[in-house]
Every structure is written in structure tokens, then in C-alpha cells.
């Protein structure tokens, strides 16, 4: 008879949680196909797979948000039924969603107390809740102000509120759904510290990710899913990144880099001392000078929220600069709207591809001609040339390998990678002079991301001027001819690829000019 | 069938009861004696045996009596030895009548008279079986093309017209009632002629026609007469045998009756002025003449004034004014001389109303709704048909409604709201055959099919102001208006002028709340006035119901306008200026009848009765105030008071 071990909170541990032969079907898709998965206390079990591999579905089943069509769940050998998040919470299962489930107008304490039985109904007992939050936070060396409003907190702090929320509810098993996607490298390190301590305390953690190095870094065991099927489960110590990558995509992949030398041409796009406001009315860009040459990829590195979005929008004509001048091939295009810039062959791959890049309720075909529907090749005095458009779409679907059931399929029902391929097809097929690519591979699986990168390199070869905005330093280093670093709306410095090191760029991203030589851990 | 017998028997009993109860005026009621056919030796003229089948009794003072009298007249002329006749009366069951006709034909009568238009189809079957016998059928002009059927009819519209002319000259109340049976045949002809005669003489007279739906329901005819009398009629007429009930009622009321079909003077000697009497013997003589030439049928005859088949009989016991007699004689002469009688037809008029508030708003919209009801009462619901769209405060919606009504064929569309003007200006030219009326305004835009109407609401406002000035104790009076424009402004200005003319020291405070519908704000404006010392309030538009309640609570007085608001707060509303748009609408209707579809504007004022001051009898208005109000009204009407508006 095993002695029941408890967590520091006094909750019993979940020694072994098993999901057996889980199958889940969505209309037209087999999301999970007979998947076995288990997690023990005192371990981090990484769940690895490309987007759409079925990782989130499997975990949402465990958390009671979906119901499996087949298969059972066992906790410590006993079968359990989980029909709602409430059931999961009762069993000691918590989940940290990729999109935080926090109400930003409420305080930390209110967020934690929400949905819990108060000790003195019908009133709330926020004072008691606050006390307990501080106790829990102290256990893991976290600083937390229970009375702070969530909107006042940084992304990393909000994630900790999510963790506290789960722990407060007695979670002994925590599912972390892509928890690092929104964090800076430093915040990732801090998260890992917390995770390691939790494992030592007896928690069971499930870590969902598609970033290989993080998986290798943090997990004890790793399970790979591909196309809804389990490929395998191994102790992390027994696998390498390459093996995992092969399992994920099903074939050997190489990291593409820009090796081919291309002769840089003339200045295509130029910003002179451009400033603009942000959405909140504060300064978004401050005196930005930037030149993008024909036949080069200029990489823009920076921590998210330092003016990348504003810069992209100013360059695409979506945001009006408050001062400064913009030139496209020598012509002053300051204040031009997107339609005029379109005519001058500027292409824009927006960061929020679902929101700004396409219309979800339009078909693939319609999305393909969003930018050029007024051109004579697609319309005749306002009437669409449907036959020509269909032919054009067929060519692009073929050329850009878009996986879609038909031309008529609504864009929103495509996977993330295919949506981005539609955007790329639309933006790149028109032989643009300038491309602004904002976070073009974010959220894409490895295969799709590689495809996007290849396409950008193709454009460089064709002599197009490319601005690549990315928060993925690996990507910046792999593709860029020059690297510009943005911090608080200012361009810190522009480095040639051969002068740039990760340390240098990292310091610049943190706002430290290289001369000052402060040490920054990346 | 059994039931029919019972009903008729009951009707007959009623007739006798009634005649028995009537004042002893020596009614000449012959006992229905079936005379034995007297067989005499043939002399100069060929002996003629005639059988008459008729639906009512021979002494019905009406239809059957007319043929009976004709037979008697024939006998007198040719001698009883030549004209031998039998009759079957009360044959209201057509099958029974048909059997009688066949029996008479089979038993060798020379001629069978089927005296009832309902006997037609029976005759059509019977006549061909007896080709040697003549049949006569009335009242109709149709012989079915059968060679042994004669048809006869009376031009009863002629006598009706004469009666109408006389009635029009003799009525004092200018209201005349008609009691008809069913709107068909001889009865319709008479009634239409009568109405035409009245209208030709004096179109302003109100002729109200009721058809009671029965030839025999004496009680209902009496009731119809009572209704006409209650509605102000002093002269009645009617046709068919059930009218005896009606004659008694008008006699009781001291009015006059005009009769038809038979001389009804003997029935009520002090009441029946004139009767159109049928003299079928004129027709029958022609028929007898033709028979003697061997012609057994195939021709039709009309009894009229010219051929003496109709005769006007004037009651000598009544002192008919000379000019009436002269007019009657002249009319008869004209008709004989060939004057056509144009049946007067009140044009059927379908009217649609679009108004901004609800029909029971105690104010603006209710005033037009009440006017339409008044018109319907006057002309009859069959003549004036109206529909309405209320609460059309969104002008675009109202415009759509106006256009819909115009497009769906209404004769006239009333846009009852000054805000509808520009919409009407666009719509009216698209429907040139339809009349539009727009109020309240004086502007027709120069469009030929728009009438404009307005109320001189400052007049009633002035009268209210005079009264309020005399009744206030605090010397502070409050006014709750909607928006400073149009009718509301006119009323308020008139009211203020009336107060100031009476007592310039009185403080009249005017608020416009900016809404026609915000009851709560109107109430609050009233509260404010009361707090500022007002003990009398007035106001206009439909939201004032809130204000009336507040002044009622405070124990003050209210003066109303647009509709009679006394019923809403009987202890508070002293007087109301009431709009009677029907005065204007009647003018518009008579213009329409002349083919004028618009282009004129009208003002309802105290002088023309389009505005009436209604004083609340439940409030003890001091005599001097009432006298001052009456004097003010008179002064406004005769022009001695001129209201100075700002």
C-alpha cells in the first residue's frame, strides 16, 4: 500500500494520470487517433507537435473542455469522468491556457476568487483570498500584489497569476499550453525555475510546445504527436533535437539560411525621421531613419511591443506618421493610403494574419484577390472576371502548395499555415518591389515556417526589398543581410549580418547601446 | 316556410294592432273581402276575366293596394259586367303564387296579373304553357321575349323627386329621413328620386337613408323612423307596405310624411303631405286595348307622370304653403315636359388619415378622428369609409404611409401634421387624381390636388385666456406648449393675448418642452409653473395629459384645446376649444363632388363652427366669466374683437 504523498499545499499528489486510447473527431478531421498519454508526479512531460497535430485537443479533453469520442482517463488507476472544467478542477487538474483566462478589469484577488465558493456568501471574501495568494506566491518566491489590477501586470506576471489561480484551486497536475510563446527569453528562464521547483514539490506538469530547445531544456519525458497520432514517448535524455524534429514533420529538415550572395541594389524604401502615435495615444515611433535596399532582407529585431507594429503599419500606409517623410523608389509617399501604395507594388504580410491579412468569411478565391480585385486583369468596369480569377487562384494554390478542399472554402476554416500561404500567395505573386513581412512565421509549424522563409529568400533573389519583422532571433540571424534593432520606438542601431552577434543584438533589444557594455543574459 | 308564415302573420297582427291603436282618423281600411266573380251577359265590350296575384294585402296602403285600386277603377270605367276580376293576396311565398297563377290560367281567366317582381321566374315557366292567355308582370320591363307576357313598371323616381322637392322646402331641421325596405327595384327607384329631389332643391339638407332589409317588418320600420327623428329629422318618407309603422311615429312626433304607391293621406290625415299614387289602370287599359287587337303580350309599359300612370295626390287637409305647392306643380310640369331626373348619388369616399399621435390622445389626432366619425354619422358609413395610421411621428414612415394609401386607391389622403408638408409636396404630384389634405397649414404649395386646412386656434385660445384671466387668484398663469411652431404657437399666442387684454398685470409664463409626446416632462413643466405660483394652466398637444394631472392635484384649473378635455379631469378643465374639422371636410367633400381636387385652403374658426368652445358644466363657472366668454366669442365672430398676435 502506497503512502499518499501530499503537495506543500496539503493537496494529495496525482501520482499517475493516464489517458488511454483517446479518439476525438471533429467534422472532417480526426484530431486525436487512439492516443495514449500519461504523466506522473514529479515530472515535466512535454507534448510536442506541429500546429494542428492534436496537442491542444488532447489537453482540452483532459481539462473537460472537449469530450472524447472514445477512450478513458484514469487517475491513480481509477477511471474518472471529466465533463467540464469544474470536474477537472475538482480532480486536481489545472490548465494554463495559451490565451490567459484573466479578466483584466478585475484585481488579482478577484480573478482568483471568481467562481469559487465564498466563505461568507453572498459577499466576497477577498481579504482571505489575498492572504492565501501571498502564501502561495511566497512558496515559489514570486512577488504578487493581490490588489493589483490584471491590466497593470506584464505578460509574465499575468502568467504567474494564472499559475497561482490553478494552484489556489488545488491543482496537482498543471497543463501549460505553449506557455513560452508570449514570454521574453528572461521570462522563459524564470518560468522554468518555477516549473523545476514545482516538480521537486511533487506536481505533475504537462508542457505543450513546438520549440525543440525548450522541450529539451525542461522536460523529463517527451511525447510527439503528428496528425493526431502519437509517434512516440521517450525520456528526454534519450532523444536529440534532430530526432524530435524528424518525428514532428515526418521527414528530415534542414534549417535554411541565406547562403546565396545577392548583389544589393538601389534604395527602394526610405524612412526619414518618421514619428507616429501608438493606439493608446503615446509615442509609437520616434525619429526613425531606415533604408531598405533592393535585393536585401533587412531584419528588424526587438522585444514585442517596442514599435514593430507601428513601424509596419506606417510603412504599409495603415497609420499616418505625425512627422517625417517616406519615399518609395524616390517618390515621396508620405501619408499615402494602402490603395496608392498597392499600385506602387508594395506588399504587406501583416502580423495579425486572421484580422488584417484576410477576411475569414470570404472564400480562398476572394481572399486571393483582395488586394488586386480592381485591376483590369480581375475586373471589367466593376464586374469581376470570375473565370480569370478562378484560373489565377488555381495557379496560386498549386504554386504555393495551399492545402484547401476547394477554392470556395472559407478562409477561416483553413489551418494557420495554409492561411499564411494564402496571404503569401496574394502578396508575393504580384512581383512586388517592396515587401513588409511582419512576424511571417509566428504560430506556424516548422514545415510551414520553412516554406515562408524560402519564399522570402526567393524574393530577395529576385531583387525585391524585404523588411522582415520578427521576434525570433534565430530567424532574423538566418535570413537577414542587415539587422536593425528597435527599442521603445527608436532604431538603436543597424548592424551588418557579419558584425552581429546574439549578445550584441540582445543588449540592443534591452535598450543598451553596445559601448556601455552591460552584461545581459540571453 | 312555416317560419315565414309565422313572421308574416305577426307582421299583419302588428299592422292591425297599430291601426287599432292609432288615433281615430277614420282609417279607410277595407275588409279583405273576396268578391264573388259576377257573371254578366256580354254587351258591347268583350267580357274580360282578370286574376290578380299579389304579395301583400289589398289594403296595404301600398303596393298591392295600388293594383287593387286600379282594378276597381277599371271596373268603374268599363262596368263590372265587362271587367270581372278575382285576386289572391298575401302570396308572399313564391311557390304558392306560382300555383295560384297556374290555377287561374288553367281555369280560363283571360289575363293573369302577377303583381310582384319576385314572380318573374315562375311566370317564365307558366306562360308558355297557356299561349292563349295573357299574363302581365310588374314591376319590371322584362317580358322574357314571351309573346303572351306584358311587363309594366312605374317611374316611381318621378313622384319621388316631386316629394323630395316639397320635403326640401318644408323641412326646418334640414334633416330628412327615408325608410326603405330593400335597396332594389321600385323601392330603390323611389328613394333615389326622392334624394335627388331634395338635393336639387337644397344640397345642404341632410338626407339619411335607411334600408331595413324587409318589406314586412313594421316594427323595424317604426324603429327606423324613431331613429331618424332622434337624429333630428322632421320629415320622413318611405316605401313598401311596412312603412305604416313609420308613418305613425312621425305623426306622433308632429312631423310630415311623404307617401308613395298609394294615397296614404287617409291613414294619417294631419301628417301625410303628398303621395305619389300609382294608377295602373292607365297601363291596364292599354293592355286591354292591345288584347282586343289580338295582341296577347310581348310589350312593356311604364306608368309615369306624363301618361297619368303616376299621379301626385296632395293632402287637402294639410295647409301646404303656396310656394311649395307651386314648386311641386312646376316640378311635375317639368318632368312631364321631359326633364331627366339625375339620381343624386353621394359619391362614395374612401379617406385615409396619417397622423403623428394616437387617435385617443385627447388632442390633435383625436380631433381629426372625431371629425371623421362625425362625417360618417352624417353621410353614413357606406359613403364615408376611412382608415387611419396613427402615431406616425417618424416623418419618413408617415410619407411611406401617405404614398401607400394614395397608391392603393383611396380618394383622399389626409396628412394631419404640419411636419408632413415636404413629403406631401413630393407625393401629391405623382397622384393627380387623388385629393390630399394637409393640416395644419394654409399652404397648398400651389399644387392643384392639395387642400390645406388650419384652425384659427388663437380664437379659442383668446377666449380661454379671457376666462383664465378672470378666474386666476394668484395672477400667475402657466402655459405648457410642445414646440414653438404652427398650431401650438398660434393657440399659445392667442391665449396670452386674451389674458393680457383682460388684465395686463397678470403674469403669463410660457414653457415649450420640446416634445409632443413627453408626458413626464409636460408634468414637470406643470409642477414648475405651480411652484412658481400659477393656479391656472393651459397647454396644447397630446403630452399635456401629464400637466392636467398635476394642476388637478394642486387644485387649480386647466383650459384645454384641440379636443374636449373635460372628461379627463371633470373638476379641473374649465373650458376646451374643440376642433370640428368636419366643417372643413364637408366643404372639401362638396368641392370634390364638383370635381375640384384641391388647391384651396380652409380655416376652421369660431365663425364657421370649425372651432367650438365647450364649457364644462361640472364646474361652477362664475356667471360673469361665462358671460365674458360668450361676449368674446360673439365679438370674434362679428369682427368687433381683433386678436393682436405678436
Amino acid at each position, binding site marked *: 500500500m502506497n503512502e499518499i504523498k501530499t503537495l506543500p499545499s496539503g493537496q494529495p499528489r496525482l501520482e499517475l494520470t493516464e489517458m488511454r486510447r483517446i479518439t476525438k473527431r*471533429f467534422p472532417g478531421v480526426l484530431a486525436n487517433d487512439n492516443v495514449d498519454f500519461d504523466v506522473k508526479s514529479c515530472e515535466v512531460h512535454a507534448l510536442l507537435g506541429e500546429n494542428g497535430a492534436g496537442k491542444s485537443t488532447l489537453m*482540452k479533453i483532459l481539462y473537460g*473542455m472537449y469530450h472524447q469520442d472514445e477512450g478513458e482517463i484514469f487517475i491513480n488507476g481509477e477511471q474518472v469522468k471529466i465533463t*467540464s*472544467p*469544474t470536474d477537472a*478542477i475538482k480532480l486536481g487538474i489545472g*490548465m494554463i*491556457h495559451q*490565451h490567459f*483566462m*484573466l*479578466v*483584466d*478589469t*478585475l484585481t488579482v484577488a*478577484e*480573478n482568483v*476568487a*471568481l*467562481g*469559487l465558493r*465564498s466563505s461568507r456568501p*453572498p459577499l*466576497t471574501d477577498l481579504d482571505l483570498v489575498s492572504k492565501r495568494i501571498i502564501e502561495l506566491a511566497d512558496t515559489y518566491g514570486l512577488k504578487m500584489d493581490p490588489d493589483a489590477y490584471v491590466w497593470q501586470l506584464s505578460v509574465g506576471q499575468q502568467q504567474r497569476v494564472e499559475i497561482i*489561480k490553478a494552484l489556489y484551486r488545488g491543482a496537482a497536475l498543471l497543463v501549460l499550453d505553449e506557455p513560452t510563446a508570449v514570454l521574453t527569453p528572461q521570462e522563459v528562464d524564470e518560468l522554468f525555475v518555477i516549473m523545476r521547483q514545482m516538480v521537486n514539490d511533487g506536481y505533475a506538469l504537462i508542457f505543450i510546445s513546438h520549440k525543440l530547445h525548450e522541450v529539451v531544456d525542461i522536460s523529463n519525458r517527451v511525447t510527439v504527436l503528428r496528425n493526431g497520432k502519437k509517434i512516440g514517448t521517450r525520456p528526454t535524455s534519450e532523444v536529440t533535437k534532430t530526432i524530435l524534429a524528424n518525428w514532428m514533420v515526418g521527414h528530415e529538415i534542414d534549417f535554411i539560411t541565406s547562403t546565396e550572395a545577392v548583389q544589393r541594389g538601389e534604395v527602394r524604401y526610405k524612412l526619414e525621421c518618421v514619428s507616429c502615435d501608438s493606439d493608446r495615444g503615446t509615442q509609437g515611433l520616434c525619429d526613425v531613419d531606415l533604408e531598405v535596399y533592393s535585393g536585401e532582407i533587412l531584419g528588424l529585431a526587438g522585444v514585442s511591443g517596442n514599435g514593430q507594429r507601428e513601424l509596419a503599419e506606417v510603412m504599409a500606409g495603415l497609420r499616418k506618421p505625425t512627422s517625417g517623410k517616406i519615399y518609395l523608389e524616390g517618390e515621396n509617399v508620405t501619408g499615402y493610403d494602402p490603395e496608392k501604395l498597392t499600385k506602387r507594388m508594395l506588399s504587406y504580410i501583416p502580423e495579425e494574419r486572421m484580422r488584417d491579412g484576410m477576411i475569414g468569411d470570404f472564400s480562398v478565391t476572394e481572399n486571393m484577390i483582395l488586394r488586386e480585385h480592381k485591376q483590369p486583369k480581375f475586373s471589367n468596369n466593376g464586374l469581376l472576371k470570375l473565370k480569370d480569377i478562378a484560373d489565377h487562384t488555381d495557379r496560386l494554390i498549386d504554386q504555393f502548395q495551399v492545402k484547401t478542399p476547394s477554392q470556395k472554402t472559407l478562409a477561416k476554416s483553413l489551418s494557420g499555415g495554409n492561411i499564411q500561404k494564402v496571404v503569401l500567395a496574394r502578396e508575393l505573386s504580384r512581383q512586388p518591389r517592396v515587401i513588409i513581412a511582419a512576424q511571417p512565421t509566428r504560430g506556424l509549424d516548422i514545415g510551414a515556417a520553412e516554406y515562408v522563409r524560402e519564399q522570402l529568400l526567393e524574393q530577395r533573389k529576385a531583387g525585391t526589398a524585404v523588411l522582415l519583422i520578427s521576434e525570433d532571433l534565430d530567424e532574423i540571424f538566418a535570413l537577414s543581410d542587415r539587422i536593425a534593432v528597435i527599442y521603445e520606438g527608436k532604431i538603436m542601431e543597424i548592424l551588418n549580418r557579419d558584425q552581429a552577434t546574439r549578445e550584441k543584438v540582445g543588449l540592443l533589444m534591452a535598450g543598451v547601446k553596445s559601448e556601455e557594455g552591460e552584461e545581459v543574459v540571453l | 316556410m312555416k317560419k315565414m308564415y309565422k313572421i308574416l302573420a305577426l307582421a299583419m297582427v302588428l299592422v292591425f294592432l297599430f291601426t287599432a291603436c292609432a288615433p281615430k282618423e277614420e282609417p279607410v281600411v277595407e275588409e279583405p273581402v273576396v268578391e264573388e266573380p259576377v257573371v254578366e251577359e256580354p254587351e258591347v265590350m268583350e267580357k274580360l276575366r282578370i286574376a290578380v296575384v299579389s304579395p301583400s294585402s289589398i289594403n296595404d296602403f301600398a303596393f298591392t293596394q295600388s293594383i287593387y285600386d286600379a282594378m276597381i277603377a277599371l271596373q268603374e270605367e268599363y262596368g263590372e259586367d265587362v271587367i270581372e276580376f278575382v285576386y289572391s293576396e298575401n302570396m308572399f311565398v313564391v311557390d304558392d303564387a306560382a300555383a295560384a297563377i297556374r290555377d287561374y290560367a288553367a281555369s280560363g281567366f283571360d289575363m293573369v296579373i302577377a303583381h310582384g317582381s319576385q314572380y318573374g321566374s315562375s311566370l317564365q315557366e307558366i306562360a308558355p304553357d297557356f299561349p292563349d292567355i295573357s299574363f302581365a308582370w310588374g314591376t319590371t320591363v322584362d317580358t322574357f321575349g314571351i309573346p303572351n307576357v306584358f311587363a309594366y313598371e312605374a317611374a316611381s323616381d318621378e313622384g319621388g323627386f316631386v316629394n323630395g322637392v316639397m320635403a326640401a322646402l318644408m323641412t326646418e331641421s334640414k334633416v330628412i329621413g327615408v325608410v326603405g325596405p330593400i335597396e332594389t327595384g321600385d323601392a330603390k327607384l323611389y328613394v333615389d328620386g326622392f334624394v335627388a329631389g331634395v338635393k336639387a332643391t337644397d344640397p345642404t339638407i341632410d338626407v339619411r337613408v335607411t334600408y331595413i332589409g324587409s318589406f314586412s317588418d313594421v316594427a323595424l320600420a317604426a324603429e327606423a323612423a324613431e331613429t331618424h327623428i332622434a337624429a333630428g329629422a322632421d320629415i320622413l318618407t318611405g316605401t313598401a307596405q311596412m312603412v305604416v309603422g313609420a308613418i305613425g311615429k312621425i305623426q306622433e312626433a308632429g312631423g310630415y310624411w311623404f307617401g308613395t304607391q298609394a294615397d296614404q293621406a287617409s291613414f294619417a290625415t294631419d301628417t301625410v303631405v303628398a303621395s305619389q299614387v300609382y294608377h295602373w289602370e292607365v297601363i291596364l287599359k292599354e293592355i286591354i286595348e292591345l288584347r282586343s287587337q289580338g295582341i296577347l303580350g310581348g310589350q312593356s309599359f311604364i306608368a309615369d307622370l306624363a301618361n297619368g300612370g303616376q299621379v301626385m295626390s296632395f293632402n287637402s287637409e294639410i295647409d301646404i304653403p303656396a310656394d311649395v305647392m307651386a314648386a311641386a306643380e312646376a316640378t311635375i310640369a317639368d318632368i312631364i315636359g321631359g326633364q331627366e331626373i339625375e339620381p343624386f348619388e353621394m359619391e362614395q369616399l374612401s379617406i385615409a388619415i396619417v397622423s403623428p*399621435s*394616437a387617435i*385617443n*390622445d*385627447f388632442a390633435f389626432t383625436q380631433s381629426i378622428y372625431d371629425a371623421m366619425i362625425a362625417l360618417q354619422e352624417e353621410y353614413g358609413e357606406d359613403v364615408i369609409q376611412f382608415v387611419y395610421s396613427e*402615431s406616425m411621428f417618424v416623418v419618413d414612415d408617415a410619407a411611406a404611409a401617405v404614398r401607400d394609401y394614395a397608391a392603393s386607391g383611396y380618394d383622399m389622403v389626409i396628412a394631419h401634421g404640419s411636419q408632413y408638408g415636404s413629403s406631401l409636396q413630393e407625393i401629391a404630384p405623382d397622384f393627380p387624381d387623388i385629393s390630399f389634405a394637409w393640416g395644419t397649414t394654409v399652404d397648398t404649395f400651389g399644387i392643384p390636388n392639395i387642400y390645406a386646412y388650419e384652425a384659427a386656434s388663437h380664437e379659442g385660445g383668446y377666449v380661454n385666456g379671457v376666462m383664465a384671466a378672470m378666474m386666476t387668484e394668484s395672477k400667475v398663469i402657466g402655459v405648457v406648449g410642445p*414646440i*414653438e411652431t404652427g398650431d401650438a404657437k398660434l393657440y399659445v399666442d392667442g391665449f396670452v393675448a386674451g389674458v393680457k387684454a383682460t388684465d395686463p398685470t397678470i403674469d403669463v*409664463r410660457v*414653457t*415649450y*418642452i*420640446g*416634445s409632443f*409626446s*413627453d*408626458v*413626464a*416632462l409636460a*408634468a*414637470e*413643466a406643470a*409642477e*414648475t409653473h405651480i*411652484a*412658481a405660483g400659477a393656479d391656472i394652466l393651459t397647454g396644447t398637444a*397630446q*403630452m399635456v*395629459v*401629464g400637466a392636467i*394631472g398635476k394642476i*388637478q392635484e394642486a387644485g387649480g384649473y386647466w383650459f384645454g384645446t384641440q379636443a374636449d378635455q373635460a*372628461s*379627463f379631469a371633470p373638476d379641473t378643465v374649465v373650458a376646451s376649444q374643440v376642433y370640428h374639422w368636419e366643417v372643413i371636410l364637408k366643404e372639401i367633400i362638396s368641392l370634390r363632388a364638383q370635381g375640384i381636387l384641391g388647391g384651396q385652403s380652409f380655416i376652421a374658426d369660431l365663425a364657421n363652427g370649425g372651432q367650438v368652445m365647450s364649457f364644462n358644466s361640472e364646474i361652477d363657472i362664475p356667471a360673469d366669466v361665462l358671460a365674458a366668454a360668450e361676449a368674446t366669442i360673439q365679438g370674434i365672430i362679428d369682427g368687433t374683437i381683433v386678436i393682436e398676435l405678436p
Partner: protein
Amino acid sequence: MISDLFTPTVLLGILASGIRLATPYLFASIGEAYSQRSGVLNLGVEGQMLLGAFFAFYIAKLTDNLWLGVLAGMGVGALMGLAMAFVTINLHAKQGISGIGFYLFGLGMSNLLFQLLVGTVETVSGFPRIEIPLLSSIPWVGNIFFNQNILVYIAFLLVPVSSYVLNKTTLGLKIRAVGQNPEAADSLGVSVAGVRYFTVIFGGTMSGLAGASLSVALLNVFQQGMTAGQGFIAVALVYFGAWRPWGVLAGALLFSLVNGLQLWIQVLGIPIAPEFAVMMPYILTILVLTLSVSKVRAPAALTKPFEREG
């Protein structure tokens, strides 16, 4: 002339007007504030008020019992709230257009029933004033604040009560969470639909009560269309009050006081065009809304239907 305004009679008169006019707004706006805080924009307030006003009037007239009338007004408001909740929460109908639909329904239905059942404008003897001993004898203002009918007291008491419920109870916490991030609330086991049903029905009930306060307490008549846009003003006052009961109180009082002021301006004959005077409360409301809009955030999930994925 302007100086005429600064006499005790006038200032107290304006205050009295403000309190009376504010009463229906308070009921309707607080109900609407609850509904909006949970993420449901109910534009049918006007219709709910009209039907509430009618039923309160009609039942009070029929039974001679004012409280039965008030209950009927609240009940019909609650039923309309229930219907609104069903179409917007279960059927995911667009909230804006559904609200307009319920407004039109209430408008038409109250007109129809009025014509069928009552026919003409009549009065009912409404709630009497209740004088609160001692307080009502406070010089100047005692009579204004403490000599009102029962519904006026209830309307003003509703402000602290509803504020307390919203901020200090678990129910209030759920309402605020559901209106801001229904997904988060749902993930914590809060029934989003349940909370919204509650607030929308509560909002309808309060709108019905607002109508009842007009027809059986303040005006004591029913006239077709008598709310004259007050239901829409009530919705605007929720924005004005930044979705907080105390803010709503401030808005309702400000709007009503300025309305009282403009009436006095006209009564005193101060030479301001009446057209401008009647616009004053609206202009002021628009000004305050414009100036405060940058600081105030609406509930993030306002007008957004919630549906759990999968």
C-alpha cells in the same frame, strides 16, 4: 433676469424637478447597467418601460391595488427580459437589433392593449407621498427629499444597494467577469449564460418598474408612447455613468436637474430661445460623454455573444 434663478424657490424647485425626473431613469439605467456589465446591451428598455407602464396602470386600475400594478409592470418587464435573454444568449441574435425589436414590440403592444383594454386616457390614483418624520421638516430641502412617494425612495435606495451588490458580492464579481472576459469566467466554472440571464431579466424588471413609476406614481396616467425616448436616454446614462450605479445616479440627476433648470428658465422668461433651452440637457450629456469617453472603458464583451468552443 438670470439673477432670478438664484432664489430659494427656484433652486429648490429645480432640485425637486431633478428628483422627480430622475426616478424612472434610475430604475431603468441601473437595470441596464447590470445587463451591460454582464455584456448584454439591451436597447429594448423603452419598450419594456412602455409595457411596464401600461400593465402597472391597467392592473392598478383593474384591481384597485397599486402594488399589484407595480408587480405586473415588473413582471411584464421581466418577461420581456427573459425573451431578450433567450434570443441574444441562446439564439445568438445581434443584441442591438434585437433590442430595437423589443422596443418596437413594446411600443406596438402597449398601444394595442391600451386601445383594446382602456381606449382613452384615464387617470389612476397613484402612490401617495410618504412624509418621513423629522427628516421632512428639515428646512428648505426636507420636504423635497423626504416627502416623496414610495417608488422615489426605492429608486434612490437602489443606487447604494446595486453598487454594493456589484462590488462586494460573488454575484457582482461574476457579473463583472462575464462582461469583461466570458471565456475566463467560463473556464472557472461560472455559468456565463446563467449570469447573463439573471442580469437581462433583472434589467427588464427594473425597466418595467421604471415604466410603473411613471404610470402609477409620478404621472398616474397612461398615454400611448408616454415614455417619449426616456428608455434610450436611460441607455445613454449608463455610458454617462461609466457602468457604475453611482455614476448613473450622477448622470440621471445632472440630466434631470438641467431639465428642471431649463423649465425654470422658460417660466421666468429669461430670454433664451425655448428651442435652445430644451436642448440643454442633451447638449450637456453629449459634452460629458465626449469628455469622459477616453477615460472610460466599456465592458470588453459588451454586445459579444458567448459560445464555448467545440
